[in-house]
Structure formats: structure tokens, C-alpha cells
């Protein structure tokens, strides 16, 4: 009785199906013509897969070691992407072997494969878009940086048509020290900078003094920017000099070292 029930329907499924117009045990034809879930892997197959996996492990360790040896003994440095590609390719192959055979996905319903693929797709979206943002924050940096000067000097940067809001800058006539016409015009913002430069000569306001030599200042500023900018992400400023809020219990001075 129990067994009979476990084995599913009594009677002829075909006739039921014909009578009802669908298979009552598989109403939407989901499993039609599919025999799955009960595949029994042969022992030989299992051993072969294990052997492959162990061999691949050896290969990936070996290739990583070989690279170090090549780099140290022969002095040839192999680009990083080679290392990454080899290691990740081998890892992927290993994972596919485990998933397809040990986990029997190869013999399983298509739905489970779909589930795994959707999972990987989501993973891909997550890592892809996050990397796009985190790795490309400097992409428009060349437009945003490099030409501005502290205090504003104007005109020294490259003229950029497309994104320059100041297509028709308001220009004013530059007058000399005694109010005479010098025949030059300058941009609005230059005037402020010029005004500041003038003060630098005034000993009373030494605090507000900025270097008269704008070119030199521009160079120094850009140098500082370059120094601040790690190779991979130029606009990150990591200030490690500031004391840490949370020091370990035995870290008296809060600088992270005991």
C-alpha cells in the first residue's frame, strides 16, 4: 500500500492525460520526457572527476609558483593579468566540474541550471556596476581637474568649448596702476585673482598673501594633486595621519601601533 502510493498514480497515465487534456501529475508539462533527479553516478565517473580536480589544484598552485620562480630566477616579470586569468580560469573549470557532476546539475532539471545562471547574472551585475563606478571615478577628471588654480587665475587652462559654460565671457578692460588703458581685456574671474595678487605686496596683510607667481603656484598645485592621487583612483584622498577613533585596548596613543 505504502509503496504503491509512493510510486505515484495507479492506472494508465496516458489514458488520464487523454481524458483530461493534460497530465494530472504534471499539469503544465514541466517534466515531459524528462527523467531527472535520480541519476546514479558511476564510481568511475566520481573518481575521474576527483582526479581531475586534484590535478587542476596542482596545476594552479604550480603555475603560481612557476611565475614566482620565473620572476625571481630569470628576472622576467609576467603581467598580472596572466596570473589572474590562469588562476581564475582553472578555478572556474574546477567549479564547473563540481557543480555539474558532484552536484549533478548536468543530470538535473533545466530549472536548477536556470536558477544558477540567474544567480551568476546577479553576481555579475553587482560586481560589474560597482566596479564601473569605483574604478572609473576619474574618467572625466581631465575635464574637471588640472586647469583650476587656487584663488582663480583664469585663462591659463586649456579652453574647452563643449562643456565650458563661459563661451562668451564678460571681458573688462584692464587698466594700469594709474588708471590708464592698457589695451588688454581680461575675464571676470581674472580680476579677482589680480586683485589678490596685488595684496601680496602689502606687508600688513601677509596672512592673505598668495604667491605672485601664478605659474609657479599652478605647478605646485598640480604636483600636489598628482602626489595625492594614487595610480588607480585619482580622486581619493586617504588621510592616514588622522588619529583613529577606535584604538585597540592596548593601544595607548591611538595611532594603531602598540
Amino acid at each position, binding site marked *: 500500500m505504502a509503496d504503491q502510493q509512493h510510486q505515484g498514480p495507479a492506472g494508465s497515465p496516458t489514458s488520464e492525460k487523454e481524458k483530461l487534456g493534460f497530465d494530472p501529475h504534471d499539469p503544465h508539462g514541466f517534466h515531459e520526457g524528462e527523467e531527472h533527479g535520480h541519476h546514479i553516478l558511476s564510481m568511475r565517473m566520481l573518481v575521474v572527476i576527483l582526479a581531475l580536480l586534484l590535478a587542476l589544484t596542482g596545476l594552479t598552485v604550480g603555475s603560481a609558483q612557476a611565475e614566482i620562480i620565473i620572476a625571481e630566477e630569470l628576472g622576467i616579470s609576467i603581467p598580472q593579468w596572466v596570473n589572474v586569468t590562469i588562476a581564475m580560469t582553472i578555478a572556474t573549470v574546477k567549479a564547473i566540474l563540481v557543480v555539474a557532476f558532484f552536484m549533478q546539475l548536468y543530470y538535473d532539471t533545466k530549472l536548477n541550471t536556470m536558477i544558477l545562471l540567474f544567480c551568476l547574472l546577479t553576481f555579475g551585475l553587482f560586481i560589474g556596476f*560597482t566596479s564601473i563606478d569605483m574604478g572609473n571615478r576619474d574618467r572625466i577628471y581631465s575635464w574637471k581637474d588640472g586647469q583650476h588654480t587656487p584663488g582663480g587665475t583664469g585663462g591659463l587652462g586649456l579652453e574647452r568649448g563643449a562643456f565650458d559654460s563661459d563661451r562668451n565671457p564678460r571681458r573688462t578692460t584692464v587698466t594700469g596702476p594709474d588708471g590708464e588703458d592698457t589695451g588688454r581685456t581680461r575675464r571676470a574671474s581674472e580680476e579677482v585673482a589680480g586683485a589678490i595678487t596685488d595684496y601680496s605686496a602689502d606687508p600688513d596683510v601677509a596672512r592673505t598673501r598668495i604667491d605672485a607667481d601664478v605659474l609657479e603656484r599652478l605647478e605646485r598645485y598640480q604636483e600636489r594633486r598628482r602626489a595625492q592621487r594614487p595610480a588607480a583612483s585619482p580622486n581619493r584622498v586617504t588621510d592616514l595621519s588622522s588619529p583613529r577613533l577606535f584604538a585597540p585596548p592596548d593601544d595607548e596613543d591611538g595611532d594603531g601601533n602598540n
Partner: protein
Amino acid sequence: MSTIDTHNAGQHAHHEGSYLTPHGGALATIWNWATTIDHKKIGVMYLFAIMFMFFLGGVAALGVRAELWEPTRVVTEVVEGETVTSYTGQVLVNLAPIVPGVESEGGISAGMNIYNRAFSLHGIIMTFMVIVPSVPASLGNFFLPLMLGAKDVAFPRLNLMSWYIYVFGSIFAVAAVVMGGVDTGWTFYTPYSTMTDADHLRVVFVILAAFILGFSSILTGLNFIVTVHKLRAPGMGWFDMPLFVWAMYATAIIQVLATPVIGITLLLLIFERVFHVGIFDPRMGGDPVLYQHFFWFYSHPVVYVMIIPAFGIINEIIPVHARKKLFGYRAMAFATLGIAAVSFLVWGHHMFTASGELAAMIFSALTFLVAIPTAIKVFNWVATLYKGSIAFNTPMLYALSFLFMFTIGGLTGLPLATLATDLHLHDSYFVVAHFHYVMMGGTIIAFVGGIHHWWPKMFGKLYNERWAIVGCVLVFIGFNLTFFTQFILGTRGMPRRYASYPDEFQFLHQLSTIGSWILGIGFLIHLGVFVHSLVAGRKAPENPWGGLSLEWETESPPIEHNFHHEPIVKHGPYDFDTVQPPHTDPAEFPMPEPLRPGERTH
């Protein structure tokens, strides 16, 4: 109606009572409910737990609105030669003596700190404990198997476990509230969330609560996916499913794929707070923007976990109460799946102001993709009304309010998806109003409408239609008064999460606060209607609205195993023009004239 009774009558000699029939005494009944694996009982327990949490979150919201009645004004006066500074207009500061962790002598900070705790509490409870589980865990649990013609969900014990996880997580959250609450906001943005309240476990408790609730969400989603795949009644193909089921299915996919990411995010956040691992801490080389990516990778898709079930409910309410085949069934189904798919591509629009121009551009473009299926849905709902037979009862009024408010919520999403305008509107009251129009005006309104729609089926009792309509109208007025003003506040420059504001905004804030009271009264009326119905409601017929999906075939309330016989599906869920609904009187629900030979309706 369509059930083919192939049974031998003798087989069902035993009588099956309603699932609400008590088993023995009070203790036995409580034990029976606490250990039940019946999806209906779990759904009902979820419903009441969610209503309770909604009440808690609502009280916090009223507190927030009360604080904003007046800005905090700094008054300095000279008393006996000394300058004394005092503050007026603070409301919540009166709670300082009973809120642990707040210095009642803290000057201007104390009241603002309590305000911050209030809005954080409101956000955390409403997001993680109300809206995310609201429709799937309560109505979904109850009606998904019924609509599929199944006896239960695929994994009933897992379902019970998910309920207990929900309770466990909520207890953590409530414990944190009792300990004084947190002021992180529901987004837990680092580095603020790793620095605030540094010597207290409150924040960790709340994060842990959200983490635990994630598992509840995952288990519900997993259960639903397998249920939809494996337990559809014979004859029910994919496109014979009610759209509520489609919505649950799409929701479940998002829950399964997105929730684990919030799991790891919150885990790392706990590590950050407890062990200071530095992954999100800028002082140690970590990155707050990375946290935002992690957080929104979950929390944007979860916005669709919140709203897609509401679409599902509206998809049921409108055709049934308009007695009209839903317009564009397949478009609806594909739009649901489309929204679910696109939901994973747009999280970056929460970070337009966090620099990253390339990503901003990509995410802005992708965000507009969401608008297309959403627009299709709205058009389809409106088109469904055409030549229907529209009953102005509570569920339908709620569905129409949903149409009104969700359309506003959706349209105001456009300037937020547009890069340039978002830079102005981001983190302003415009955003607050926008997501309340979607989450509250969309999800909660649909949820309440859905509860009214299915209440007779769930509890076998009718409710007082007149008072329910009064409640609905009050909710509609109160909601729009509360939140429409906030759109204008936002465009005029009111930033969100402000405990105080310049005087120019006061009038609109006061309107908004008055709206919140009306809204509160509306919900209290609904509560009264529900309690009255449970205590003294009239017995509900099997099919009070003339619905066609399978849940209307069984009794009200359903029997313990849902159906006396496994139903066999022979018609679509919305074929109102060709099928007389089960258990209905043709005089009350007359059919359109039969087709003339050669005539096609679609």
C-alpha cells in the same frame, strides 16, 4: 463551477471544518496556532504582526510630524546680566527623561537626537518590518496556495520558520527601541552608523534585526518560487495564473536574489562596529561609497519587493470589482517580470550626488527603463475600467486611490531619474514625498485595499462597508494633505531628516502635520471596522464580489485543506465575460450577452 468532481463521495466522509475552528481549549488553540504549518494561519499571524508593527511605525511617524509642527527656535535673553539660551518649538524633547542614552540637559541636541531616533525608528520599522513582508508574507502566504489550487506552500515548515524568524528579528528591533532606539536612519550610512552611539549595542541590535529579517524574507521568497513552479492546479498553465501570483513570483525572485546582499552588508557593518575591520571606514582606507553600493544593491530591488505585490493586488481588485477581463494580461505579466529584472540595474540612482559621473550616466539611463513597464501597467488598469461594471465599494475605492497616488508617485520619479533635476531634488522632501506616494500611497493603500477585498474570505465575516468607506476617504485626504505639501517643500529647498527648518517652510509643514492626523484617524477607523467585523460581523458568503480565481471557490473561511477536491482549472482568472463566478447568483452578477457567431472580443 469548473471543478470536475471525479471523487467517490465516500472518500470525503470526514467533515473538514474551517481553518479557524478552535482545537480544544484556549491553551490547545494557542499551541495549535504556534506550531501550525498551515499557510493560512501563518498568513493571519503575519497579518496581525505586521499590523502591530505598522502601528508602532505610525506612532513614530506622528511623532516626527509633531516635531515638525514648529521649527526649533533659539531664544537668547539676558537674565541678571548673564546670557541664557533656550529653545522653543521642540516637542519630542519632552520624551528625554524616558529615552535612555539622551542627555536631558543636552541643550538643542537632545530634542533633535530624539527626533532622529523617531524618524530612524519609523524608517526601519516601516521598511524592514512592515512594507517588505506586508503583502507577500500575509496576503501572499494566505492566497498564493489558494489561487494555485494547492493545499499548502511547498515547504510548510520552512514557512513557519520564516514567521518565527520574523518575530525573532522584530524582537531584536523592539529591544533596541526599548534600549533607546538608534539615530542611524534606516539606510545605516557609514561612517555615521559606525560612529554614532559608539559604546552601545543598540545599533548592533537593530542591524542584527534587519539581518535576521532578511532570512525571513528569503525563506518566504524561496517557498513561493517552488510553490508556483510545482504546485499549480491541474490545467493551470503559466498564463492561467492570476496576476497576483505573477506578482508574488516576481517578488520572490527579487527577494531570493537581492536579500543575501543586504545580509553580507549588514554583517560587514556589524563587524565594522564591533571589530572595526575598516572595510567601510574611511579612516582606515575603507569607503562609504562602497557601502552605498552594497546597501542599494539590495535596497533598490527591495523597493520593487514592496511595490510589485501591490500591483498584484490591484490586478485582482480592479477586474473583480469592475467585472471586466483585465486589459492586456500578458503585457501585465511580462511587465511584472520586466520590472523585477530591471530592478537590479538601477540602484546607482540613489548615489547621483555621490560623484561617479560615468556610473551616474549609466544608472540614469537604466532607471528610465523601469518607467516603461510601470507606465504600461497604469495604462492597462485604466483601460480595464472601460465598459466594466464598476462597484464603488471599499476595495475598489482603494484601487482607484492607488491609481491616483501611484501615478503621482511614478511620475514624480521622472525628475528623480533625470540626472540634472535629481541633483536638486536628491535628499530633499521631494524624495520623501515621492517614496511615500509609492510606498504608502502605493503599497500600503493596495495592502489595505487587499485586506478589505479578501477579508470576507480570510475570516468569513463581512465588515461595515459604510465605515470602511469613511476610513478610505479619510486616508485618501489625509495622505494627500500630508505628502503633497512635501513635494513643494522639497522643490523649494527643504532637506530631509531636518528636525528644524527656516520659518518660510512652516506653513506647509503644518499642513502636512494636520494631514498626518487625518491619516491616523482614517487608519484607526479601519482598525475599528476590522475589530467590529471579527466580533460582530455578518457571515460572509463564499464569493461576495463575484471573483473568478480559485480562492473564491472554496468556503469562507477556507477549510483546513483549502479545497474539498483538488480544483481543475478550465478558464482564466479574469474571464468575467464568459464564466459565471462560482457561488454567485446570475441575477446579482449577470453575464454579458453570449458571443454572436463569428464575433471575437479579443
